[in-house]
């Protein structure tokens, strides 16, 4: 099934793009999908441990199950305020 990764700020700069589609096995967890993503995209690997991830507009845990069409956002440390 197809999911999409969105990048912001430093993750966008290092990815060199703001969006990446990825075909993942049905029933994948967020963690499994991220493993696939980071295998392919070496430049953003150093940000993984400091980033949070959202499915849609909610922060999600690594064991969250993905659905077809989910948008997964990579959220490097926030700097609002």
């Amino acid at each position, binding site marked *: 099934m197809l999911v999409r990764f*969105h990048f*912001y*700020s*430093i993750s966008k700069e290092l990815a060199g793009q703001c969006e990446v589609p990825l075909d993942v096995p049905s029933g994948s967890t967020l963690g499994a999908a991220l493993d696939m993503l980071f295998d392919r995209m070496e430049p953003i690997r150093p940000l993984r441990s400091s980033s*949070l991830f*959202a499915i*849609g*507009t*909610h*922060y999600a845990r690594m064991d969250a199950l993905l659905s077809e069409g989910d948008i997964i*956002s990579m*959220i*490097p440390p*926030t*700097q*609002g*305020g």
Partner: protein
Amino acid sequence: MMTEPLIDIIDGPLHSADYKWSSGSGAVVEFSGIVRGTEEGQLIRGIDYEAFREMALAELGRIARETIEKYELTGCVCIHRVGFVPVGEAAVYVRAEAWHRRAAFEANIEFIEKLKQTVPIWKHPIFASESLAADDPSSSG
């Protein structure tokens, strides 16, 4: 009835006086976070704020509702600016209204702490040197 927060992410200057306070408030505490003139010791012209807008609005709303409930607020406003914010202008505005001032102060302080932790907004300082280079015709071609 639970107080509804007023949350927004805006692209232009922030006019806090536009947001009237609620009847029933005895104390109104407002915080404005202003863009400072330096970043990491270097002079800047301003900060360009980037947001994951839908999620930032959702997170601000969640924080606001939690804060309203915990502190029994009679009003709550949070406006965050995105795009370029020049030095000296407000990038963020938080208001907490309550019957007593202690709740309003504590709610406001906690709101900003949480905002900084989880709301997907990032800053890109525009250094004075960058802008000067860009403004200098001799360096443009």
